[in-house]
Protein backbone atom coordinates (compact mmCIF):
# COMPACT_ATOMS: atom_id res chain seq x y z
CA UNK A 1 0.00 0.00 0.00
CA UNK A 2 3.03 2.27 0.21
CA UNK A 3 3.99 2.52 -3.45
CA UNK A 4 4.99 5.96 -4.77
CA UNK A 5 1.68 6.26 -6.63
CA UNK A 6 -0.23 5.34 -3.48
CA UNK A 7 1.62 8.03 -1.57
CA UNK A 8 0.48 10.61 -4.13
CA UNK A 9 -3.13 9.38 -4.14
CA UNK A 10 -3.14 9.41 -0.35
CA UNK A 11 -2.66 13.20 -0.32
CA UNK A 12 -5.94 13.91 -2.16
CA UNK A 13 -8.60 15.33 0.14
CA UNK A 14 -12.36 14.86 0.32
CA UNK A 15 -14.10 17.74 -1.48
CA UNK A 16 -16.83 18.04 1.14
CA UNK A 17 -14.67 17.49 4.22
CA UNK A 18 -11.29 18.83 3.07
CA UNK A 19 -9.69 18.25 6.47
CA UNK A 20 -9.74 14.54 5.56
CA UNK A 21 -7.68 12.80 2.91
CA UNK A 22 -9.45 10.10 0.92
CA UNK A 23 -7.17 7.67 2.73
CA UNK A 24 -8.26 8.93 6.16
CA UNK A 25 -11.90 8.75 5.08
CA UNK A 26 -11.44 5.12 4.04
CA UNK A 27 -12.58 5.86 0.50
CA UNK A 28 -9.22 5.10 -1.11
CA UNK A 29 -9.24 1.31 -1.45
CA UNK A 30 -6.05 0.65 -3.36
CA UNK A 31 -3.61 1.80 -5.99
CA UNK A 32 -2.16 -0.62 -8.53
CA UNK A 33 0.61 0.12 -10.97
CA UNK A 34 0.60 -1.87 -14.22
CA UNK A 35 3.43 -1.00 -16.58
CA UNK A 36 2.78 2.66 -17.25
CA UNK A 37 -0.79 2.76 -15.96
CA UNK A 38 -2.02 3.54 -12.47
CA UNK A 39 -5.40 2.17 -11.40
CA UNK A 40 -6.90 3.75 -8.31
CA UNK A 41 -9.85 2.09 -6.56
CA UNK A 42 -12.29 4.23 -4.58
CA UNK A 43 -15.59 3.40 -2.91
CA UNK A 44 -18.56 5.71 -2.33
CA UNK A 45 -19.49 6.50 1.27
CA UNK A 46 -23.21 6.58 0.42
CA UNK A 47 -24.78 5.41 -2.88
CA UNK A 48 -25.73 8.97 -3.83
CA UNK A 49 -22.49 10.61 -2.76
CA UNK A 50 -22.20 13.53 -5.23
CA UNK A 51 -18.49 13.98 -4.53
CA UNK A 52 -17.34 10.86 -6.41
CA UNK A 53 -16.73 12.69 -9.70
CA UNK A 54 -14.67 15.37 -7.99
CA UNK A 55 -12.66 12.72 -6.11
CA UNK A 56 -11.96 10.99 -9.38
CA UNK A 57 -10.90 14.21 -11.12
CA UNK A 58 -8.70 15.22 -8.21
CA UNK A 59 -6.97 11.81 -8.16
CA UNK A 60 -6.34 11.95 -11.89
CA UNK A 61 -4.94 15.48 -11.74
CA UNK A 62 -2.74 14.87 -8.73
CA UNK A 63 -1.26 11.70 -10.20
CA UNK A 64 -0.75 13.29 -13.62
CA UNK A 65 1.03 16.19 -11.97
CA UNK A 66 3.27 13.62 -10.30
CA UNK A 67 4.23 12.21 -13.68
CA UNK A 68 1.78 9.32 -14.14
CA UNK A 69 0.39 9.79 -17.65
CA UNK A 70 -2.17 6.97 -17.68
CA UNK A 71 -4.42 7.17 -14.62
CA UNK A 72 -7.69 5.28 -14.26
CA UNK A 73 -10.10 5.42 -11.38
CA UNK A 74 -12.39 2.49 -10.75
CA UNK A 75 -15.26 2.04 -8.34
CA UNK A 76 -15.12 -0.72 -5.75
CA UNK A 77 -18.54 -1.44 -4.26
CA UNK A 78 -17.64 -4.40 -2.07
CA UNK A 79 -17.37 -4.35 0.86
CA UNK A 80 -19.66 -1.38 1.42
CA UNK A 81 -17.99 1.62 3.04
CA UNK A 82 -18.17 1.79 6.81
CA UNK A 83 -17.51 4.78 9.04
CA UNK A 84 -15.22 2.38 10.96
CA UNK A 85 -12.75 2.86 8.10
CA UNK A 86 -12.08 6.49 9.07
CA UNK A 87 -8.57 6.41 10.49
CA UNK A 88 -7.50 7.68 13.91
CA UNK A 89 -5.77 10.59 12.19
CA UNK A 90 -9.00 11.27 10.30
CA UNK A 91 -11.05 11.23 13.51
CA UNK A 92 -8.65 13.70 15.10
CA UNK A 93 -8.84 15.95 12.01
CA UNK A 94 -12.65 15.91 12.16
CA UNK A 95 -12.64 16.81 15.85
CA UNK A 96 -10.05 19.56 15.28
CA UNK A 97 -12.42 21.09 12.72
CA UNK A 98 -15.51 20.98 14.91
CA UNK A 99 -17.04 17.79 13.50
CA UNK A 100 -17.84 14.98 15.91
CA UNK A 101 -16.27 11.72 14.70
CA UNK A 102 -18.36 8.53 14.47
CA UNK A 103 -18.57 5.84 17.13
CA UNK A 104 -18.45 2.15 16.20
CA UNK A 105 -20.70 1.12 13.33
CA UNK A 106 -23.49 -1.29 14.24
CA UNK A 107 -22.62 -4.93 13.62
CA UNK A 108 -25.78 -6.86 13.13
CA UNK A 109 -26.72 -10.43 12.70
CA UNK A 110 -30.22 -11.11 11.52
CA UNK A 111 -32.82 -8.60 10.41
CA UNK A 112 -32.28 -4.89 10.99
CA UNK A 113 -34.24 -3.90 14.07
CA UNK A 114 -36.64 -0.96 13.86
CA UNK A 115 -35.63 1.87 16.17
CA UNK A 116 -38.41 4.34 17.00
CA UNK A 117 -36.44 6.23 19.63
CA UNK A 118 -33.91 8.95 18.87
CA UNK A 119 -30.50 7.41 18.23
CA UNK A 120 -28.46 7.50 21.41
CA UNK A 121 -24.78 8.27 21.03
CA UNK A 122 -22.26 9.02 23.74
CA UNK A 123 -20.64 12.02 22.09
CA UNK A 124 -19.26 15.34 23.23
CA UNK A 125 -19.49 18.84 21.80
CA UNK A 126 -16.39 19.28 19.62
CA UNK A 127 -16.14 22.92 20.72
CA UNK A 128 -16.61 22.96 24.48
CA UNK A 129 -16.35 19.25 25.27
CA UNK A 130 -19.69 19.06 27.08
CA UNK A 131 -21.54 15.75 26.92
CA UNK A 132 -24.86 17.61 27.16
CA UNK A 133 -25.80 17.47 23.52
CA UNK A 134 -29.07 16.86 21.71
CA UNK A 135 -29.81 15.42 18.30
CA UNK A 136 -31.41 17.93 15.94
CA UNK A 137 -31.71 15.64 12.92
CA UNK A 138 -30.26 12.39 11.66
CA UNK A 139 -29.69 14.12 8.32
CA UNK A 140 -27.36 17.01 7.64
CA UNK A 141 -25.63 19.01 4.94
CA UNK A 142 -23.93 15.91 3.54
CA UNK A 143 -25.21 12.36 3.38
CA UNK A 144 -22.77 11.15 6.00
CA UNK A 145 -23.58 13.56 8.84
CA UNK A 146 -26.22 14.13 11.52
CA UNK A 147 -26.99 17.50 13.12
CA UNK A 148 -26.51 18.10 16.85
CA UNK A 149 -26.72 21.00 19.23
CA UNK A 150 -24.70 21.47 22.38
CA UNK A 151 -26.97 22.46 25.26
CA UNK A 152 -24.01 23.82 27.26
CA UNK A 153 -22.42 26.24 24.77
CA UNK A 154 -25.54 26.27 22.54
CA UNK A 155 -23.51 25.82 19.36
CA UNK A 156 -24.79 23.50 16.63
CA UNK A 157 -22.37 20.90 15.30
CA UNK A 158 -22.21 17.99 12.89
CA UNK A 159 -21.60 14.33 13.71
CA UNK A 160 -20.42 11.73 11.21
CA UNK A 161 -22.99 8.93 11.33
CA UNK A 162 -22.14 5.33 12.06
CA UNK A 163 -22.81 3.06 9.09
Amino acid at each position, binding site marked *: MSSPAYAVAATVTD*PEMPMLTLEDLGVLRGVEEHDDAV*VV*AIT*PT*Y*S*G*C*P*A*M*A*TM*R*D*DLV*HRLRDAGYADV*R*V*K*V*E*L*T*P*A*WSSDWITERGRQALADHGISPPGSAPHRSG*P*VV*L*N*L*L*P*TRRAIACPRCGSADVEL*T*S*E*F*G*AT*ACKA*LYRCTACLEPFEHV*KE*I
Partner: protein
Amino acid sequence: MSHSAPDPSHEDGSPYDDALLGSDASHWAFGTDFEDPLAGVDTTLPDGVDARTLATYCLMLADDALVASHRLSEWCSRAPDLEEDIALANVALDLLGQARLLLARAAAADASVVPALPDGSPVPPEDALAFFREAHDFRNVRLGEVPNGDFGHTIARLLLFSTARLALLERLTASRDHVLAAVAAKGVKETTYHRDYAGRWFLTLAQGTDESRRRVEAGLAEVWPLYGELLRTHPVEAEVAAAGVGVDPATVADEVDVVLEQVFSVSGVQRPGVPPLAGVTGRYGRDGLHTEALSRLLAEMQVVARAHPMGQW
Protein backbone atom coordinates in the same frame (compact mmCIF):
# COMPACT_ATOMS: atom_id res chain seq x y z
CA MET B 1 -28.00 12.47 -13.76
CA SER B 2 -24.43 13.58 -13.78
CA HIS B 3 -24.21 17.35 -13.81
CA SER B 4 -21.41 19.51 -14.96
CA ALA B 5 -20.86 22.95 -16.36
CA PRO B 6 -18.79 23.90 -19.39
CA ASP B 7 -15.09 23.69 -18.73
CA PRO B 8 -14.20 27.30 -17.97
CA SER B 9 -10.54 26.70 -18.74
CA HIS B 10 -11.51 26.92 -22.41
CA GLU B 11 -12.58 30.52 -22.03
CA ASP B 12 -9.59 32.77 -22.00
CA GLY B 13 -10.01 35.75 -19.81
CA SER B 14 -13.30 34.62 -18.30
CA PRO B 15 -14.22 36.03 -14.91
CA TYR B 16 -13.72 32.53 -13.51
CA ASP B 17 -9.99 32.55 -14.02
CA ASP B 18 -7.44 31.83 -11.37
CA ALA B 19 -8.96 34.09 -8.73
CA LEU B 20 -11.98 31.85 -8.30
CA LEU B 21 -10.76 28.44 -9.39
CA GLY B 22 -7.07 28.55 -8.66
CA SER B 23 -5.13 26.60 -11.23
CA ASP B 24 -7.36 23.55 -11.19
CA ALA B 25 -10.45 23.93 -13.35
CA SER B 26 -11.66 20.48 -12.30
CA HIS B 27 -13.05 22.13 -9.19
CA TRP B 28 -15.65 23.74 -11.35
CA ALA B 29 -18.95 22.32 -10.09
CA PHE B 30 -18.82 18.57 -9.56
CA GLY B 31 -16.60 17.02 -12.16
CA THR B 32 -16.31 17.95 -15.77
CA ASP B 33 -17.63 14.92 -17.57
CA PHE B 34 -19.76 11.85 -17.05
CA GLU B 35 -18.90 9.55 -14.21
CA ASP B 36 -19.89 5.90 -14.59
CA PRO B 37 -21.16 4.72 -11.21
CA LEU B 38 -19.97 1.20 -12.12
CA ALA B 39 -16.58 2.21 -13.58
CA GLY B 40 -14.28 -0.79 -13.40
CA VAL B 41 -16.88 -3.01 -11.69
CA ASP B 42 -17.15 -6.56 -13.07
CA THR B 43 -20.63 -6.75 -14.60
CA THR B 44 -20.37 -10.29 -15.99
CA LEU B 45 -23.71 -12.08 -15.73
CA PRO B 46 -23.95 -14.94 -13.25
CA ASP B 47 -24.58 -18.38 -14.73
CA GLY B 48 -28.11 -19.42 -15.46
CA VAL B 49 -29.66 -15.96 -15.69
CA ASP B 50 -31.31 -14.53 -18.74
CA ALA B 51 -29.80 -11.10 -19.49
CA ARG B 52 -33.12 -9.49 -20.35
CA THR B 53 -34.77 -10.85 -17.23
CA LEU B 54 -32.00 -9.57 -14.97
CA ALA B 55 -32.04 -6.17 -16.69
CA THR B 56 -35.81 -5.94 -16.24
CA TYR B 57 -35.50 -6.84 -12.57
CA CYS B 58 -32.84 -4.15 -12.12
CA LEU B 59 -35.20 -1.65 -13.74
CA MET B 60 -37.91 -2.57 -11.22
CA LEU B 61 -35.60 -1.87 -8.28
CA ALA B 62 -34.16 1.21 -9.99
CA ASP B 63 -37.48 2.73 -10.99
CA ASP B 64 -38.91 2.29 -7.49
CA ALA B 65 -35.95 4.29 -6.18
CA LEU B 66 -35.91 6.89 -8.97
CA VAL B 67 -39.62 7.69 -8.78
CA ALA B 68 -39.65 7.78 -4.97
CA SER B 69 -36.57 9.99 -5.07
CA HIS B 70 -38.26 12.41 -7.44
CA ARG B 71 -41.38 12.69 -5.30
CA LEU B 72 -39.28 13.29 -2.17
CA SER B 73 -37.18 15.89 -3.97
CA GLU B 74 -40.38 17.83 -4.68
CA TRP B 75 -40.30 18.75 -0.99
CA CYS B 76 -37.09 20.71 -1.48
CA SER B 77 -37.61 24.20 -0.01
CA ARG B 78 -41.22 23.33 0.89
CA ALA B 79 -40.94 21.02 3.91
CA PRO B 80 -42.44 22.01 7.28
CA ASP B 81 -39.04 23.11 8.58
CA LEU B 82 -35.43 23.24 7.46
CA GLU B 83 -34.42 20.01 9.23
CA GLU B 84 -37.15 18.01 7.48
CA ASP B 85 -36.32 19.69 4.19
CA ILE B 86 -32.74 18.48 4.56
CA ALA B 87 -33.81 15.05 5.78
CA LEU B 88 -36.18 14.40 2.88
CA ALA B 89 -33.53 15.63 0.41
CA ASN B 90 -31.00 13.24 1.97
CA VAL B 91 -33.38 10.30 1.61
CA ALA B 92 -34.04 11.35 -1.98
CA LEU B 93 -30.29 11.54 -2.66
CA ASP B 94 -29.64 8.06 -1.26
CA LEU B 95 -32.43 6.67 -3.44
CA LEU B 96 -31.12 8.51 -6.49
CA GLY B 97 -27.72 6.95 -5.88
CA GLN B 98 -29.29 3.49 -5.62
CA ALA B 99 -31.24 4.19 -8.83
CA ARG B 100 -28.11 5.23 -10.72
CA LEU B 101 -26.25 2.06 -9.77
CA LEU B 102 -29.24 -0.11 -10.65
CA LEU B 103 -29.92 1.61 -13.98
CA ALA B 104 -26.25 1.24 -14.88
CA ARG B 105 -26.45 -2.44 -13.87
CA ALA B 106 -29.55 -2.92 -16.06
CA ALA B 107 -27.77 -1.36 -19.05
CA ALA B 108 -24.65 -3.45 -18.48
CA ALA B 109 -26.73 -6.64 -18.22
CA ASP B 110 -28.65 -6.06 -21.44
CA ALA B 111 -27.98 -2.99 -23.59
CA SER B 112 -31.19 -3.63 -25.53
CA VAL B 113 -33.26 -2.18 -22.66
CA VAL B 114 -31.63 1.22 -23.24
CA PRO B 115 -33.62 3.55 -25.53
CA ALA B 116 -31.87 4.43 -28.79
CA LEU B 117 -30.61 8.00 -29.08
CA PRO B 118 -29.32 9.88 -32.15
CA ASP B 119 -25.86 8.85 -33.38
CA GLY B 120 -23.15 10.65 -31.49
CA SER B 121 -25.34 11.46 -28.48
CA PRO B 122 -23.17 11.72 -25.37
CA VAL B 123 -26.06 10.66 -23.09
CA PRO B 124 -24.85 7.70 -21.01
CA PRO B 125 -27.03 4.59 -20.67
CA GLU B 126 -28.24 5.35 -17.12
CA ASP B 127 -29.46 8.77 -18.26
CA ALA B 128 -31.05 7.32 -21.39
CA LEU B 129 -32.98 4.93 -19.15
CA ALA B 130 -34.05 7.65 -16.73
CA PHE B 131 -34.92 10.37 -19.20
CA PHE B 132 -35.84 8.71 -22.49
CA ARG B 133 -38.22 5.91 -21.53
CA GLU B 134 -41.99 6.33 -21.74
CA ALA B 135 -44.20 5.80 -18.71
CA HIS B 136 -45.23 2.33 -19.91
CA ASP B 137 -41.58 1.24 -19.84
CA PHE B 138 -41.22 2.17 -16.17
CA ARG B 139 -41.43 -0.82 -13.84
CA ASN B 140 -41.97 0.90 -10.48
CA VAL B 141 -44.85 0.07 -8.19
CA ARG B 142 -47.62 2.65 -8.24
CA LEU B 143 -47.13 3.51 -4.55
CA GLY B 144 -44.11 5.63 -5.47
CA GLU B 145 -45.71 7.69 -8.20
CA VAL B 146 -48.93 9.06 -6.69
CA PRO B 147 -48.61 12.78 -6.00
CA ASN B 148 -47.36 14.05 -2.67
CA GLY B 149 -50.06 15.04 -0.25
CA ASP B 150 -49.10 16.76 2.97
CA PHE B 151 -46.21 15.79 5.24
CA GLY B 152 -48.35 13.10 6.90
CA HIS B 153 -49.00 11.50 3.52
CA THR B 154 -45.29 11.58 2.68
CA ILE B 155 -44.37 9.97 6.00
CA ALA B 156 -47.01 7.24 5.59
CA ARG B 157 -45.78 6.45 2.08
CA LEU B 158 -42.12 6.50 3.11
CA LEU B 159 -42.90 4.13 5.98
CA LEU B 160 -44.50 1.55 3.67
CA PHE B 161 -41.90 2.01 0.94
CA SER B 162 -38.78 1.95 3.10
CA THR B 163 -40.00 -0.95 5.24
CA ALA B 164 -40.55 -3.11 2.16
CA ARG B 165 -37.36 -1.94 0.45
CA LEU B 166 -35.21 -2.62 3.49
CA ALA B 167 -36.57 -6.16 3.81
CA LEU B 168 -35.96 -6.76 0.10
CA LEU B 169 -32.44 -5.34 0.15
CA GLU B 170 -31.51 -7.39 3.21
CA ARG B 171 -32.33 -10.56 1.26
CA LEU B 172 -30.75 -9.23 -1.91
CA THR B 173 -27.34 -9.02 -0.23
CA ALA B 174 -27.18 -12.80 -0.85
CA SER B 175 -27.73 -12.38 -4.61
CA ARG B 176 -25.51 -14.43 -6.90
CA ASP B 177 -25.15 -11.25 -8.94
CA HIS B 178 -22.25 -9.51 -7.25
CA VAL B 179 -23.32 -6.07 -8.42
CA LEU B 180 -26.83 -6.45 -7.01
CA ALA B 181 -25.44 -7.90 -3.78
CA ALA B 182 -23.09 -4.91 -3.43
CA VAL B 183 -25.78 -2.34 -4.21
CA ALA B 184 -28.05 -4.05 -1.68
CA ALA B 185 -25.40 -4.09 1.05
CA LYS B 186 -24.92 -0.34 0.69
CA GLY B 187 -28.65 0.21 0.41
CA VAL B 188 -29.40 -1.66 3.64
CA LYS B 189 -27.33 0.83 5.62
CA GLU B 190 -29.04 3.80 4.01
CA THR B 191 -32.56 2.44 4.07
CA THR B 192 -32.25 1.62 7.77
CA TYR B 193 -32.04 5.38 8.38
CA HIS B 194 -35.00 6.01 6.05
CA ARG B 195 -37.24 3.51 7.81
CA ASP B 196 -36.33 4.76 11.28
CA TYR B 197 -36.96 8.33 10.13
CA ALA B 198 -40.39 7.47 8.73
CA GLY B 199 -41.31 5.33 11.74
CA ARG B 200 -40.35 8.04 14.26
CA TRP B 201 -42.32 10.70 12.42
CA PHE B 202 -45.31 8.39 12.04
CA LEU B 203 -45.31 7.86 15.81
CA THR B 204 -44.73 11.56 16.51
CA LEU B 205 -47.57 12.68 14.27
CA ALA B 206 -49.93 9.96 15.53
CA GLN B 207 -49.25 10.85 19.17
CA GLY B 208 -49.02 14.59 18.57
CA THR B 209 -52.02 16.88 18.20
CA ASP B 210 -55.49 15.91 17.00
CA GLU B 211 -54.65 17.59 13.71
CA SER B 212 -51.33 15.81 13.19
CA ARG B 213 -52.99 12.48 14.00
CA ARG B 214 -55.85 13.18 11.65
CA ARG B 215 -53.40 13.97 8.87
CA VAL B 216 -51.12 10.98 9.24
CA GLU B 217 -54.15 8.67 9.44
CA ALA B 218 -55.59 10.29 6.32
CA GLY B 219 -52.23 9.92 4.57
CA LEU B 220 -52.04 6.25 5.50
CA ALA B 221 -55.58 5.66 4.22
CA GLU B 222 -54.64 7.27 0.91
CA VAL B 223 -51.56 5.14 0.27
CA TRP B 224 -52.81 1.91 1.85
CA PRO B 225 -54.61 0.66 -1.32
CA LEU B 226 -51.18 0.58 -3.01
CA TYR B 227 -49.46 -1.37 -0.23
CA GLY B 228 -50.39 -4.83 -1.53
CA GLU B 229 -48.84 -4.22 -4.93
CA LEU B 230 -45.50 -3.53 -3.25
CA LEU B 231 -45.29 -7.16 -2.11
CA ARG B 232 -47.00 -8.84 -5.04
CA THR B 233 -44.91 -11.26 -7.12
CA HIS B 234 -44.30 -10.41 -10.76
CA PRO B 235 -43.19 -13.28 -13.04
CA VAL B 236 -39.79 -11.59 -13.52
CA GLU B 237 -39.31 -11.45 -9.76
CA ALA B 238 -40.27 -15.11 -9.45
CA GLU B 239 -37.75 -15.99 -12.16
CA VAL B 240 -34.83 -14.07 -10.68
CA ALA B 241 -35.65 -15.39 -7.22
CA ALA B 242 -35.59 -18.96 -8.53
CA ALA B 243 -32.21 -18.24 -10.15
CA GLY B 244 -30.80 -16.94 -6.87
CA VAL B 245 -30.15 -13.42 -8.12
CA GLY B 246 -33.31 -11.63 -6.99
CA VAL B 247 -35.92 -11.63 -4.24
CA ASP B 248 -39.59 -12.52 -4.54
CA PRO B 249 -41.27 -9.70 -2.58
CA ALA B 250 -44.00 -12.06 -1.37
CA THR B 251 -41.35 -13.88 0.70
CA VAL B 252 -40.74 -10.76 2.80
CA ALA B 253 -44.42 -9.80 3.15
CA ASP B 254 -44.74 -11.29 6.64
CA GLU B 255 -41.70 -9.58 8.09
CA VAL B 256 -42.70 -6.26 6.50
CA ASP B 257 -46.10 -6.65 8.08
CA VAL B 258 -44.59 -7.32 11.51
CA VAL B 259 -42.55 -4.10 11.34
CA LEU B 260 -45.55 -2.08 10.24
CA GLU B 261 -47.66 -3.59 13.02
CA GLN B 262 -44.98 -2.51 15.49
CA VAL B 263 -45.28 1.10 14.28
CA PHE B 264 -49.08 1.05 14.14
CA SER B 265 -49.52 -0.45 17.58
CA VAL B 266 -47.12 1.90 19.36
CA SER B 267 -48.75 4.78 17.47
CA GLY B 268 -52.27 3.59 18.36
CA VAL B 269 -53.29 3.61 14.71
CA GLN B 270 -55.62 1.06 13.13
CA ARG B 271 -54.90 -0.38 9.71
CA PRO B 272 -57.12 1.38 7.18
CA GLY B 273 -60.11 -0.66 6.08
CA VAL B 274 -59.70 0.27 2.43
CA PRO B 275 -59.35 -2.39 -0.26
CA PRO B 276 -56.26 -2.70 -2.46
CA LEU B 277 -56.25 -0.83 -5.75
CA ALA B 278 -56.84 -3.43 -8.44
CA GLY B 279 -54.68 -3.80 -11.49
CA VAL B 280 -56.04 -3.03 -14.93
CA THR B 281 -56.74 -6.20 -16.90
CA GLY B 282 -54.37 -7.93 -14.51
CA ARG B 283 -51.53 -5.48 -15.04
CA TYR B 284 -49.76 -3.42 -12.38
CA GLY B 285 -46.87 -0.97 -12.06
CA ARG B 286 -44.32 -3.78 -12.51
CA ASP B 287 -45.93 -4.49 -15.90
CA GLY B 288 -45.66 -0.84 -16.97
CA LEU B 289 -49.27 -0.05 -16.08
CA HIS B 290 -49.33 3.24 -14.16
CA THR B 291 -51.54 6.02 -12.94
CA GLU B 292 -51.71 9.28 -14.84
CA ALA B 293 -49.50 10.79 -12.13
CA LEU B 294 -46.41 9.00 -13.48
CA SER B 295 -46.79 10.64 -16.89
CA ARG B 296 -46.91 14.07 -15.27
CA LEU B 297 -43.94 13.27 -13.05
CA LEU B 298 -41.89 12.07 -16.02
CA ALA B 299 -42.92 15.07 -18.12
CA GLU B 300 -41.30 17.32 -15.56
CA MET B 301 -38.31 15.08 -14.84
CA GLN B 302 -37.49 14.37 -18.50
CA VAL B 303 -38.35 17.58 -20.33
CA VAL B 304 -34.91 19.20 -20.35
CA ALA B 305 -33.00 16.02 -21.25
CA ARG B 306 -35.45 15.23 -24.06
CA ALA B 307 -35.16 18.73 -25.49
CA HIS B 308 -31.40 18.21 -25.80
CA PRO B 309 -30.67 14.59 -26.76
CA MET B 310 -27.22 15.68 -27.91
CA GLY B 311 -26.59 17.68 -24.75
CA GLN B 312 -23.60 17.22 -22.51
CA TRP B 313 -24.54 17.54 -18.86
